[in-house]
C-alpha cells in the first residue's frame, strides 16, 4: 500500500562519512511471485545452478526435512535432520547442494543424482560459507558446535580450527583490506571473531547474539544481532548501527552500487546505502520470512524471499519510475515538519516571555540552575556498585530512565519512586554487571515537584569502565579481600611506564588515589563487587625488576585485563608466565580422559553397528517368513525384532551420551587454550594455540600444560 511506511529507524553513525555520490533514484520492484506449496524451514533457502548451462533455481528445505527444488516434482529425502544448506560450484560448470545435518556434511550432485561425499562432523553443522580464504583454495566452510571445517570439492578436509562457542553465522570478507579474505564468524556469546587462515586475529564484542554476517566491500562487512540491531564494521571500527524491533533474516550486498538489501524476518525488505544505512526503498512480503537468496539472470540480480508458508516473492533493484514525485513530496513533507517543529519551539519561547510570575508558579517550575549529578558510588559494606543520581536544591526525582545496551535484560532500566509523596532528591540504583565491558549509560532524570505532571528531563551520559566490578580496597575493609592463588607475571613494557593512566580509564577509582599506581614499588588490592563479591584482584609492581604480577583467580577476567592493558598502551607483543593451578589441573584431566573416551566411542560405535546389523537381518528373515506364508515363524521374528530394536536404540543413546561428554570436554579444553592465549598479546598468544594443536596432533599431550604456563617459546 502506498503510504504504509515505517518511520526511519534511529541511526548511530560513528563518524561523518562522506560516501560516494551514489544515485539515490533506485527502488525495489516486485517482479515475480509463486508458491512452493510446502512449509519451509527457517534459514534453509539457497539459489543454485543445478545443471550445466542451466538457470539458477531455488532450493529449500521443508519442515518435514526434505529438500525441495523448484520446478522439480520430486524432492530429496535426507534421513538425518537438516540444519542448513548451501550451494558450491563443485560440479563441472554447475553447483552441488551442500547439506549440513546434525552429524555430517553431505555434498549432493543433483545433475548426476549421486552423493559426491559425505563427511562426519561431530555435533553437526549450523551454517555454511563458500569461497576462498586467504591463500587456501576455494572450499565450503562449515560452522559447527565450536569447530570450523573446510572441505574441497572431493570432500578432503582442507581446514580445521576451533573457536570458543557455537558458530551461528559466517562470511568471508577482507576484514583488514590487505587483499586477502578472512573468515568472520558470529556466535551466541555476543562475539564476532575474525580468523586469518586458521588463527583468530580479532574479537569484536557486541551487545547480543550474532544472527547474520555479510560481506559488503573490502574492509567492510555487515552484521545483525538478535535484538534487532544491524550495522557495518569498516577496517575494524563500527561504521554505523541501527536498531529495529524486528530481527534480520538475511543481508545481501550489491557492492558495485554501494547498496545492501536487508530482509527482515517479519516480512520487510529494505534497500539501503551500505555506507550509512539510509533506506532508499522498502517493500514487504505478507508473512514471516524463512530465508532469502540472491540469484542472477544475465546481468540482472534478483532477491528471492521465501516465507515460512512456502510463498515466494522476487524483487529486483531498478531505476525508480515514480521516484521523483515521491521523493519530492517526501522532501516537502520533511521540510514542512521541520519548519513546524521550529515554529513550535519559537512560539513557546514567545509565550514564555508573556507569562506572569503567578502563572509560572502554578506550573510547579524548578529553579533554573538545578543540576543533576550522576556518579558511580561503591557501597563497601554491601560490596555493591551503584549509580547515584542526585538533584540540587532538594528537587524531587520523579523517575530515572537508563538506556544501556547489553547491561540490563532489555535495553533500559527504569526507576520510579514507590510513593510520589515520599519523594527524594537522591537515589542509588544498583548495578550488578556480569560482563567486563565498557558501556555507555544514557541517563534521563525526571525532575519535578510532587504534584506536578510536567517534569524537566536532565540528560547525562556516563561511561561505565570495563572493570567496574572491582574497587580499590581500603584498609578498614580488608576482611573483604580474599588473596587469590592464581597470577600472571610479565615484564613491564617501556610504553606502560605510567600505570595510572590505564587504571584511571578502566576502573572506578577516585582521581585522588590514582597516583599511587605510579610508585616504583607497590601492592594494590581491589575487592570484588557483586556478582564478583568474593573474587579479589591485586597488582604487584616492581619497576626495579621491571615486572608486574597480577593476582586473580578467574582466568577469563585475567585475559580481559591483559588485553585491555596491552590495547591501552598499544603493545603488540607481550609474553607472560601464568599460574592457574585449577585450570591447568582441569586441562590435565581432560587430556587424560580423551584417549579412553575415544576408545569407548569406538567400542560403542562397533556395538551399535553390530546391533543395527542384527536388526536388519531379523527384518529380512521376518519378511521371508511372511513371503513363504510361515506365520508362526514371522511372529517369532517380529517379537525378536522388538527386543533387538530396543537394544539398538539403547546402544545409540549410550553412544550419543559418550559423544556429548567427549565434545563437552573438547570444547572446554579449547576454551582453556583460548583463555591462556589471551594471557599473552600478539604472536606469543597465537603461538600458544599453534603449539597446543601440534602437541595434540603429535600425541605429545604432557607438554600442553607447560605451554599454557610458560608460553610456546621455551
Amino acid at each position, binding site marked *: 500500500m502506498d503510504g504504509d511506511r515505517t518511520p526511519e529507524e534511529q541511526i548511530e553513525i560513528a563518524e561523518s562519512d562522506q560516501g560516494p555520490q551514489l544515485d539515490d533514484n533506485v527502488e525495489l520492484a516486485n517482479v515475480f511471485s509463486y508458491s512452493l506449496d510446502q512449509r519451509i524451514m527457517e534459514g534453509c533457502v539457497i539459489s543454485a545452478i543445478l545443471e550445466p548451462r542451466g538457470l539458477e533455481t531455488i532450493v529449500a528445505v521443508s519442515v*518435514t526435512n*526434505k529438500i525441495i527444488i523448484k520446478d522439480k516434482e520430486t524432492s530429496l529425502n535426507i534421513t538425518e535432520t537438516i540444519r542448513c544448506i548451501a550451494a558450491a560450484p563443485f560440479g563441472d560448470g554447475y553447483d552441488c547442494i551442500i547439506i549440513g545435518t546434525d552429524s555430517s556434511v553431505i555434498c549432493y550432485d543433483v545433475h548426476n543424482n549421486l552423493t559426491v561425499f559425505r563427511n562426519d562432523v561431530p555435533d553437526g553443522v549450523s551454517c555454511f560459507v563458500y569461497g576462498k580464504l586467504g591463500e587456501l583454495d576455494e572450499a565450503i566452510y562449515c560452522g559447527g558446535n565450536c569447530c570450523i571445517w573446510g572441505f574441497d570439492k572431493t570432500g578432503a578436509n582442507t581446514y580445521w580450527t576451533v573457536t570458543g562457542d557455537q558458530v551461528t553465522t559466517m562470511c568471508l570478507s577482507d576484514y583488514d583490506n590487505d587483499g586477502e579474505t578472512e573468515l568472520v564468524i558470529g556466535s551466541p556469546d555476543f562475539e564476532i571473531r575474525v580468523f586469518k587462515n586458521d588463527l583468530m586475529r580479532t574479537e569484536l564484542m557486541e551487545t547480543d547474539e550474532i544472527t547474520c554476517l555479510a560481506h559488503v566491500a573490502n574492509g567492510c562487512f555487515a552484521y545483525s544481532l538478535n535484538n534487532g540491531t544491524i550495522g557495518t564494521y569498516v577496517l575494524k571500527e563500527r561504521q554505523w548501527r541501527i536498531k529495529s524491533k524486528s530481527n534480520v533474516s538475511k543481508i545481501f550486498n550489491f557492492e558495485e552500487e554501494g547498496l545492501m538489501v536487508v530482509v527482515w524476518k517479519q516480512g520487510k525488505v529494505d534497500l539501503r546505502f551500505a555506507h550509512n544505512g539510509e533506506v532508499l526503498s522498502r517493500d514487504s512480503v505478507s508473512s514471516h520470512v524463512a530465508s532469502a537468496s540472491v540469484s542472477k539472470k544475465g546481468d540482472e540480480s534478483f532477491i528471492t524471499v521465501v516465507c515460512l508458508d512456502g510463498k515466494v516473492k522476487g524483487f529486483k533493484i531498478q531505476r525508480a519510475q515514480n521516484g521523483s514525485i515521491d521523493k519530492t513530496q517526501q522532501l516537502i513533507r520533511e521540510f514542512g515538519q521541520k519548519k513546524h517543529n521550529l515554529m513550535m519551539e519559537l512560539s513557546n519561547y514567545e509565550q514564555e516571555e508573556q507569562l506572569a510570575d503567578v502563572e509560572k508558579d502554578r506550573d510547579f517550575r524548578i529553579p533554573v540552575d538545578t543540576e543533576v549529578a550522576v556518579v558511580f558510588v561503591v557501597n563497601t559494606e554491601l560490596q555493591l556498585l551503584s549509580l547515584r543520581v542526585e538533584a540540587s536544591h532538594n528537587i524531587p526525582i520523579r523517575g530515572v530512565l537508563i538506556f544501556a545496551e547489553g547491561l540490563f535484560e532489555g535495553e533500559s532500566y527504569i526507576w520510579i519512586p514507590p510513593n510520589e509523596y515520599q519523594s527524594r532528591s537522591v537515589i542509588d540504583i544498583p548495578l550488578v554487571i556480569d560482563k567486563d565491558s565498557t558501556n555507555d549509560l544514557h541517563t534521563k532524570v525526571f525532575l519535578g515537584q510532587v504534584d506536578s505532571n510536567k517534569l524537566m528531563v536532565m540528560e547525562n551520559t556516563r561511561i561505565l569502565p570495563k572493570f567496574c566490578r572491582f574497587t580499590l580496597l581500603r584498609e578498614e575493609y580488608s576482611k573483604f579481600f580474599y588473596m587469590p592463588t592464581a597470577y600472571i607475571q610479565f615484564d613491564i613494557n617501556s610504553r606502560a611506564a605510567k600505570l595510572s593512566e590505564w587504571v584511571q580509564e578502566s576502573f572506578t577509582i577516585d582521581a585522588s588515589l590514582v597516583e599511587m599506581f605510579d610508585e616504583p614499588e607497590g601492592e594494590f588490592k581491589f575487592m570484588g563487587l557483586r556478582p564478583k563479591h568474593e573474587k579479589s584482584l591485586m597488582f604487584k609492581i616492581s619497576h626495579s625488576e621491571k615486572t608486574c604480577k597480577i593476582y586473580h583467580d578467574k582466568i577469563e577476567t585475567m585475559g580481559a585485563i591483559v588485553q585491555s592493558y596491552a590495547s591501552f598502551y598499544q603493545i603488540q607483543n607481550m609474553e607472560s608466565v601464568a599460574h592457574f593451578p585449577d585450570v591447568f589441573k582441569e586441562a590435565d584431566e581432560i587430556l587424560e580422559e580423551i584417549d579412553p573416551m575415544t576408545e569407548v566411542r569406538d567400542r560403542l560405535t562397533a556395538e551399535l553397528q553390530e546391533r543395527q546389523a542384527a536388526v536388519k537381518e531379523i527384518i529380512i528373515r521376518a519378511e521371508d517368513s511372511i513371503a513363504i506364508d510361515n506365520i508362526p515363524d514371522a511372529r517369532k521374528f517380529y517379537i525378536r525384532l522388538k527386543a533387538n530394536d530396543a537394544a539398538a536404540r539403547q546402544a545409540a543413546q549410550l553412544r550419543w551420551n559418550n559423544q556429548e561428554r567427549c565434545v563437552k570436554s573438547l570444547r572446554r579444553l579449547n576454551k582453556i587454550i583460548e583463555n591462556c592465549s589471551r594471557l599473552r598479546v600478539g604472536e606469543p598468544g597465537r603461538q600458544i594455540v599453534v603449539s597446543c594443536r601440534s602437541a595434540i596432533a603429535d600425541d605429545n599431550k604432557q607438554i600442553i600444560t607447560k605451554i599454557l604456563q610458560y608460553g610456546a617459546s621455551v
Partner: protein
Amino acid sequence: MQNYSRTDFAQVGTTNRGCMRVIPSDKEKEHDLIVVGGQNGSLICLSRKSNDTTIIFKTQPGYPVQSLALGGPASSKKKDKIFVASQNTVRGVNRKGKTFFSMETNMAEVANRMFVRGLDVVLTGRKSYSRYHDTVDSNSYLCTEDIHDVVSLVFEEAWGSREYTSILACGNSTLQIIEGNNFAYDVRLDSVPFTVSLFMGDGGHTKLLVLYGTKTGRLGLVSVPQGGGKILWEIDTTSGACVTTIVCFNVTGGQFPDIIVGKEDGLIEIYVIDETDHAHLFGTFSCDESITGISCGHVSSKSEIDIIICTFTGWLFSLAKTSRPMIENLPVAANFSVKMQQLRSEVEELQTKVNEERLRYEEITKRQGSGTGSTFFHSFQVHENFEYSAAHGAYNLTIELVIPIDFVVVQSQLPIRLMEVEKNASVVSEVRQDALNPWPLLASYRCQANVCRLELRVQANEGDSGVINLYVCPKVMPKCAQITTHYIKALSSHMRSHDFDLYRPMNTLQFTGNFSIAEAHAWLHNLLPNVPSKCPPADTITNNYQCSVNGGTQLQVVYSKGSAVFRSDCMTTICIIRDKVSEQTMKMQIRVEVACELNQDSVNHCLKLIDPKITSMLNIEKNKLYAAALKELESNNDDVFSFLSAANAKILKDHDAIYEKSEGVSIEDSGVLAILENLMVARGKLTGRSSKGRGDAIRDLISTDYSLENMQTLFKNAMND
C-alpha cells in the same frame, strides 16, 4: 490504494474533528478553496494553483474552533458561507474572511458539534442539544449520555406532522432521534457511535438514511422514519480504530456518491455503493496521524476530484489519482528548485531564530542567579485516546503530539501485559519488578525518527484495577516530559449493553444501608468503564453490562438511595464487586449490610459460555496438526484426493488458511486459564471455602482431555475439597 498518491498542501496548527471543509468556487473557471479552523482559534482559507498553496485569508487566534460547517441561504444552491463554533459562539464568515454574522448562544457548555442547514444551526455540547432557527432558540434537549456527534434530516418540503428531527450519536451505544424538543426513540447498536453523516449527503432516496461510524471501527446505515428506526446494514472496516469522519462524495466515478471514512489510526477508506444501498470496500490509504477532517472538491484540478484530508497535527494533504495528466502534477523543474530553495531558506532562518532564542534564554537564566529564576518548560499538547477494544480484549492507548516523540515510559500500578502492535516501530524494553521498584510493570518505548504518534495495547485481568502513567518526552530543548494518567477499572472488560437475559442462573449481591444514590453511583464509576462521573437525575437507575472476554456473562445493576443490587451469572464478577464496594464503604465509614445469594448452577453456566472459545482454539491447534500431516501425505502421493475423506480433503485444501488462522492463537496467551482459575477462586471466596486455585489442574485438563463435561466435573470435585 495503488492508484492514489498523497500531495501535501500545508501544515496548519492542531485541529479538532470536523474543522475542515472544501468551499465550492463561485465562478466556473476557478478552483475550490479549503477552509480549516485550528485549535488556536485561527481560521485559514487556502487555495491551490500551479502546485503551490496560497493563503486567501487568516483570522486572529482566539478560542479553539470546535466545529466548522458550510451553509448558505435556502434559496441558493451554493453552500459557501463558513460557520464556525467556538466556546458557545457561532460566527459566520464569508469567503473573503469577513464576519457577517455572530450569535452568542445560551449554552452552558462548549459547543462541540454543529450542523448547519439553511437557516437552522444545530449545536451539541457534551450533554445538551440545541437548535436555532434564524438565530432564535427553537428546540433544546438534555441528554443523559455523552453526545459524540449530531446530524439533522433535510426534509423541508414534506415534514408533515413530524417536527425538526436530529440524530445524536450517544455514549450508551445508541442513536437517539430527537423530534423537536422530545426524545422520539433510539436505535440500539452494539458499540458506541462516534460519527454520523447523511447517506449520500442528503439522506438517500428516502431522505431518512443516516450513516454511522463507531469507536470500534464499524460502519453502518440506519433508516430513521417516524415511529421507529431500523439498521439496514453494518460492516467492519479494515481496522478497529475509531471512525472520526464520514463524507459522501462521488470520487470513483460510479453511479452513486461514495463513502469516504477517516479514522483515528490514520486510515482513509473508500466504499462504493450498489443499487441496494450496500457498501463495498474500494480501497484504503494510510497516513501516520489521526484523521480529523475529510472533504472533496476540485481543489487542484477542474477535471479531477481531490480528496482533501486534515489530520490532528494539522497536515493538509490531498489524495488524487496518479493517472491524471503529468503536466498538472509534476512541478516544473525551475519552480520546484525555487520552492525547495524557499523552504530551505525558511527552515534555516527559523533555525537561526531558535538558536538566538536559546542563547538569549541561557543568558537570562545565568543573569538571574542562584535559586531565583525558574526553568523554562515547553508546553506541548498530548492528544490521547484510551479505549477498550472487544476484538482484542485489550485497551488501545494512543498518544499523538505535534512534535516528534523521543521516548515514552509506561508505569503501571496493576499487572498488565503490553501486547505487540504491528505498526509500532519503537524499541520496547520492559523492566521487571525488583527491590527498588514496586511497580508490576515499567517499560520504555524509544521512538524512531520523526514519530509523532504511538499506539500501545494494554491487557489487564478483570479484578485488577489501578493507574497507568505515561511519561511522554518529546524531542525538544530544553528537555521536558509530561505525565498522562489513565485508569483501568476492576471490571475492565464489561461493556454497556441493552439487553439482560433473565433466564440465566443468577447470583445476587445486595448492599443496603445509609448511603445516597450519588455514593452508590460513585462505586459503579470506580468499578466499571464508561460510567459518567455525575449521577444521572433519577430515583432508581438500572444499567446492564456484558463481559467480552469470558464468553459473554452479564451484569445488571439497580441502585437507589440506600440500596444497590448487583445481579450476574458470573461469580467472579460478583466477587470482584463485593471486594471493591466493601473496600469503598470501609474507607468512607459507611455502614452497609451485605447479602449474597449464590446460584451454584451459574458455575456450569459460565463453563458452558466459555466452552466455544476453548473448543475453537483447541480445534485450530488440532486442525493445524492434521493439515501438516496431510500435506506430508500429499507430497508423497500423486493422487491423494482419491482416497481422502471429504473432511480430510477439505483440511488439506485449507492448509494455508488453517496455518494463517492459527497464527497468534494460544491457550496460554488468551487469558482463558486465568478466567477459569479466577472463577474457582471466586466461588471459594464467596462460599467461605478454600480459595486455593487449581491452575495446574485446569491447564492439564485443557491440554490433555478437555471437554465441557470434564471441566464441570473438575469444578464439582474442587467444591468438595
